[in-house]
């Protein structure tokens, strides 16, 4: 059983590390939400393996709670944070903030409603992802 637990924990921890790498790489918020889902799944797996190892049942309510609230993160991300406005991913300089404020003022005076055009702009596709897929010919 010890060998089984060591192998299983190694597999689960490797999956968690790979999920962390995916969270770091992105490229979009939705990929990070998927990485969080995988991180939750591997956390549930690790708790289950530990409970199986020492034959205890006290940690099983943690699994119930995680399976109930584990999807809240990805739901919140996909409902509210999936649409990333241009330049949102980095800290802007004061000049850029002032320039955008001026631009939205101009837009408000011209169209009668302010700031929606910038928020509606679709996200730019990730160059890294596209380059990788075309290089490996996945989509051919």
């Amino acid at each position, binding site marked *: *059983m010890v060998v*089984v*637990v060591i*192998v*299983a*924990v190694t*597999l*689960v921890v*490797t*999956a*968690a*590390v*790979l*999920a962390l*790498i*995916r969270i770091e790489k992105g490229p*979009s918020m*939705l*990929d990070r*939400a*998927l*990485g969080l*889902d*995988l991180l939750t*799944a*591997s956390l*549930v*797996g690790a708790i*289950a*393996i530990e*409970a*199986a190892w020492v*034959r*205890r*049942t006290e940690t*099983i*309510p943690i*699994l*119930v709670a995680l*399976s*109930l609230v*584990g*999807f809240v993160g*990805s*739901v919140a*991300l*996909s*409902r509210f944070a*999936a*649409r*990333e406005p241009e330049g949102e991913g980095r800290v802007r300089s004061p000049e850029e903030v002032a320039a955008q404020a001026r631009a939205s003022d101009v837009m408000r005076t011209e169209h009668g409603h302010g700031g929606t055009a910038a928020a509606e702009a*679709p*996200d730019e*596709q990730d160059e890294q*992802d596209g380059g*990788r*897929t075309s290089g*490996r010919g*996945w*989509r051919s």
Partner: protein
Amino acid sequence: MLFDAGTWSLITDVLAAVFILAGAFLTFAAGIGALRFPSLLARMHAVTKPQVLGLILLLIGLSLRVRSWSAVAMLALVVAFQLLTAPVGAHLVSRAGFRTGKVDESELQPNQMEPDDDEHTA
């Protein structure tokens, strides 16, 4: 009795070990897939493996190991909640991917999210 108590204990432990290894392997495979697959929907396909099948295998292994009916009832509850919540989360993530243009629609045969198809996008 076919076997004595010690032999039964050994058999269930070995079965539990097999189930736990299978569940852990599915989690590992999902990690590989989430890192290496090229598109959002392909990664989502990989990530849903440990959320349902891997979880069920791990919890079968755990219940074979603890052998108490109250624990088995709570583990069945875990599986039921996960079966309710995992599709909701995956559906919302994929829909948000469609609406923000992160899904290459030329890959979809057929594309049921066609903009001029009112029946499916309503």
